[in-house]
């Protein structure tokens, strides 16, 4: 199971153009930020597993409603002691304001895709990640040689010391 960068994306724009994620190591021409005018012209967003014949992951296809904006990023989760390996959730969905002036109702639809293929759709807080973390190889506490705030040593004050 790949824990990082396990999908590649493909975008179909309203005018029919298809844009593919660039190959590993190449600079990405399509930017997922508000300065990219094409970000508002996405009709279909597709995620394909990078691993051929992946046993865990399937293709994910999201049709973006008219007027809606794509939501897409990878959320990396790590810890200071590397007690569990760093992993990413892939978040993909869309956001729509029901009014053209942006003052209408906000509607969001987000899929949280885990590296093991589990998909959790929510508009609220994060889905629980503890179960997935527990399924990852954990370091024995004695193997964690370093962590933020590791093992401060406390000593007792001498009798004349405050």
């Amino acid at each position, binding site marked *: 199971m790949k824990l990082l*960068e396990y999908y590649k994306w493909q975008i179909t724009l309203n005018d029919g153009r298809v844009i593919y994620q660039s190959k590993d190591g190449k600079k990405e021409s399509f930017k997922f930020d508000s300065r990219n005018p094409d970000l508002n012209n996405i009709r279909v967003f597709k995620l394909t597993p990078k691993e051929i014949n992946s046993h865990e992951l399937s293709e994910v296809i999201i049709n973006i409603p008219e007027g809606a904006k794509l939501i897409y990023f990878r959320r*990396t989760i790590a810890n200071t*002691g590397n007690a569990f390996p760093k992993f990413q959730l892939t978040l993909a969905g869309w956001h729509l304001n029901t009014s053209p002036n942006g003052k209408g109702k906000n509607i969001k639809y987000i899929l949280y895709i885990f590296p093991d293929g589990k998909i959790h759709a929510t508009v609220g807080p994060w889905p629980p990640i503890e179960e997935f973390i527990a399924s990852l190889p954990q370091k024995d506490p004695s193997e*964690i040689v*370093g*962590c933020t705030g590791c093992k401060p040593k*406390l000593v007792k004050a001498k009798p004349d010391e405050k």
Partner: protein
Amino acid sequence: MASPADVNLTCCHGSDAGTEVDITGTGIDFITADNCTNTSGNRTTNPITIPASGFAYSYEKWLKFELGTTEPDTQVTNFQFWGGGSAPEAGVVLDYYKVYNTATTPVLATTNAAYTAVTAATSDAKQAITGTLNTQGEATQFIVMMLEVSTGASQGNMGQQTYSYSYDEN
């Protein structure tokens, strides 16, 4: 696409917190000296003395997230930080944090005023860290951490504390 962005956890010490040390996966000690080291010798040389009354504190530890050599396709943002939900020694040894924008020289903490106990930053109530990083060397605001020890604390090496963090990349 670029590889996953190289986001490092950096500890800053010295004048104006100007000396940077990458501590991703290695950690630091809460001790009574201004350094970003994680060794048994460091802890032995600079222990925190359990006070006869009141509180004793560690030096402030200034941490931030910094973009390394591999830059994101677009940006890295939405940094969040949280602890394991329990104090190093309930009631007598507490780890604290505050978020801060401007680098200043770390000092030996003398109070927990303006700090928040790490136990308050949990997986259900994560602490947001401001920063949107695009290019190498850019960093978030600081998480300033310190340890408070009160008179009932146990002597000796304490259990390690592990903190979690997350960030969004696209």
